[in-house]
């Protein structure tokens, strides 16, 4: 706490920070962990209600996700795409823009990378990888630019455009792969395999852990740098916190919007490209189980904080990896894992900080930005649930 001497009003030198007191800093991890703990409790109730041994199930889940080097590696593999989509979403959210279209960027990015991988077969592997990653990022960025321009130029609500463009991206890539790039020897809707030396090499045997995860970590660091140290990140943050203020001090809102959508789409595109190069090795129609949407959950749950995003991505990674494995060893349905995810999501959106009054003074922690309109509901959550419902109806999200 920087004391201000009553007489002079001059802050006492040497004491830097005032806002979050020491007690608060201790409470913040607790606050972040809250949704997970509550989710596990609710999950246990559901398990018990369906006559299963909750503790045993959790133990199995834990073993399958973190029990050994291979399990951990697979958890990291599962965490990679959602870490990237989480960061892509968080960049937009922190800047006050509700880009729920990362899924779309992911699809076009994935398709671009796959195209480079199966077309440029004559080039040496590392170059193909480089080209594929760059193309994936560019494709994602250009895709996100569409709603960006619509918003910047004509104030078209980006929740609607980005959400809808997801479907456009998914169906567009589906069309491309089914009509133009179908692998000759397979009946399913898949592109040809990418060149074998364009695959990312596993860092661990018997796993698909590749440099992709490390790249995602680098992006996390860049994200932290952007919002804590960079002038442009400062401008984006102010735009997100108070756009009127930002305008009055001379921040160009239109430019902020374009930058945000470009960055967000770029990272979304990377997420798709790296998934192709490191895991799938080809573009598969409707391949994403909703990475972009889980990214929304990751961003909200992490409260936009880089470490928080990393942790929630790891959590979702562990859940999906452990959940997939657990089916092989028990009769627990995958739906239960989905319930867990859903519950975590719900509690992520509830501001746990609201419960004890003292926590509301916490200024340093980021809360999901409030949209100007409509006041009573939280649009990312609405968008997310709409997307979830829509996706389960249309069936592309299985």
């Amino acid at each position, binding site marked *: 706490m920087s004391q*201000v001497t009553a007489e002079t*009003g001059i802050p006492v030198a040497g004491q830097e920070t005032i806002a979050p007191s020491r007690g608060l800093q201790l409470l913040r991890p607790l606050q972040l962990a809250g949704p997970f703990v509550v989710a596990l409790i609710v999950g246990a109730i559901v398990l018990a209600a369906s006559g299963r041994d909750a503790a045993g199930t959790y133990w199995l889940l834990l073993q399958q996700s973190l029990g050994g080097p291979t399990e951990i590696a697979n958890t990291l593999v599962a965490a990679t795409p959602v870490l990237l989509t989480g960061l892509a979403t968080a960049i937009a959210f922190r800047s006050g823009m509700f880009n729920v279209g990362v899924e779309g960027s992911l699809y076009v990015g994935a398709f671009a990378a796959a195209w480079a991988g199966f077309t440029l077969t004559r080039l040496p592997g590392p170059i193909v990888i480089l080209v594929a990653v760059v193309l994936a990022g560019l494709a994602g960025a250009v895709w996100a630019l569409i709603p960006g321009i619509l918003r910047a130029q004509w104030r078209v609500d980006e929740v609607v455009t980005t959400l809808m463009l997801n479907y456009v991206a998914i169906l567009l890539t589906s069309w491309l792969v089914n009509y133009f790039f179908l692998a000759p020897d397979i009946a399913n809707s898949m592109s040809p395999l990418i060149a074998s030396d364009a695959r990312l090499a596993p860092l661990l045997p018997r796993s698909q852990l590749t440099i992709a995860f490390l790249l995602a970590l680098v992006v996390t660091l860049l994200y932290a740098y952007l919002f804590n140290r960079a*002038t442009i990140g400062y401008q984006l943050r102010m735009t997100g916190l108070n756009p009127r203020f930002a305008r*009055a001090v001379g921040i160009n809102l239109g430019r902020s919007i374009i930058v945000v959508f470009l960055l967000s789409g770029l990272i979304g595109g990377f997420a798709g490209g790296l998934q192709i190069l490191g895991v799938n090795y080809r573009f598969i129609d409707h391949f994403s189980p909703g990475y972009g949407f889980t990214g929304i959950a990751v961003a909200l749950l992490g409260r936009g904080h880089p470490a928080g995003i990393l942790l929630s991505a790891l959590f979702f990674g562990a859940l999906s990896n452990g959940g997939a494995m657990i089916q092989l060893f028990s009769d627990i349905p995958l739906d239960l894992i989905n319930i867990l995810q859903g519950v975590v999501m719900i509690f992520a959106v509830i501001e746990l900080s609201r419960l004890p*009054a003292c926590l509301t003074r916490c200024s340093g922690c980021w809360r999901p930005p409030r949209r100007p309109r409509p006041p009573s509901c939280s649009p990312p959550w609405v968008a997310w649930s709409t997307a979830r419902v829509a996706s389960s109806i249309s069936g592309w999200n299985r």
Partner: protein
Amino acid sequence: MTEDSRAAGAPNSGASASILAPPRVRIRGLTKRYGGILANDGVDLEIPRGGIHAIVGENGAGKTTLMRALYGLVEPDSGVIELDGVPVRIATPAQAIARGIGMVHQRFELVEQLSALENLALGDLPHRGLMFDRNAAVVRAREIAAQLGTTMDWDRLVAHLTVGARQRLEIMRLLYRDADILIFDEPTSVLTPQEADDLFGVLRRMAGQGKTIIFITHKLREVFAIAEQVTVMRRGRVVASLPTKGSDPQRLATLIVGEQFASPVRATTIPPGKPVLEVDRLSICDDLGNLTLRQASFSIHAGEIVGLAGIEGSGQRELVEALVGLRRPVTGTINLRGRPVVTASVWERRKRGVAYISEDRDAEGACLPASLAENIFSIERDNPTLARGGRLNLAAIARFARSILSRFDVRGGGPQSPARALSGGNLQRLVLGREMQRTPTLLIAAHPTRGVDVRGITFIHQQLAESRAGGAAMLLISEELGELIELSDRLLVIFEGRITANLAAGEATPERLGLLMTGAA
């Protein structure tokens, strides 16, 4: 240190209150600490039923905090609140409202996306079955507007209301909820003198009906105009509570500041230099597409303060926004030191020396959730010692912020405190400090002393005068005609979107301005 001039049975206009009845509100030993800052330090306060009670004190003295505690928005660390002699616990505004306590905040608490009518009825919707009974709300709204003696565009979104209209709406909300204890936190800081007088009429009428009114203000003549009793706070404590009868503004000012206090001296005028701002036949539309400024032409020279007088909503806001670069005019030109800037962005203009003190401090002038350092840095993004090569120098920014905080005497937080934690007046100093320290060539100042205490006003007036002596051109917008006349070298009067008069400092009197502003002359 309590000067015990508290008379038993303070003068009281409500006939119902007897000397023996317990006071309507009694606060005992109320303490509230924010980190290292004691916002309220053992406050004792008694307010009888049916009177108007003023609370005065320097910026950051703890007035708002005390009232927020009474209204259930702040949980005191210790202390007792009694209503009619009965100790009560007020933990939420809902409980306060249920007990008949209503508050108009220093910072508006309206839902911008709803209409004025919806805001009025919010929290207590008249309904028929499950449906919002709009007609009943309209009837009620009309009644209240009539009671207050003002009008309101009930279907307009609050986002499109002027600051003054929002303030009136806040007051109407209290009346709508039949509050019996009404707390006003600097209600007149955004009202025109005429509106303030109207408000005082209503307050007196309500006090006469037995309602208890608590009134925070920095304007001492208001205290003497309407309050029977005044409490003075300083650094979290009550230092005096006295009847206004038999006291005077000078004595009160001394109590507030805690020392003898010199009245400001008017700086000598200097001959104006070259024109800095030239506006030629400027016409501007508002958000709804109405032409609110028509063919305005004027200029401001270096070393000159030009005051803009007018009833709120006469086109000042649009003019200011066009000058700053926030609004594109329909026709006309704006020249800054001879160069056209009509199409220049806000940032380009700021780099050419335009500074802007917004009329809406909380929504536009400052970023409340951001830290003080971030608020100050906002217009220093081109300062190479603070940011270079796209990279922030956080240590330098904190140092820079600290220097501004001390130079402009911003109390209540360090560089890393959120702006939200500052008291209203201190935040105003921060905004002013941020804008003034760049030694602007053109300062556009809307209500620069809004919410600032007596001493702060003197300080700010000195700063403005210094800046003028340094050759700055200034456009001053204020509802305080006294302030306008005192500071300005020249006065423009704006009426229904037209500039109808251009007076030299000597020619302007409040009466003459008043007539011009209403189009009567």
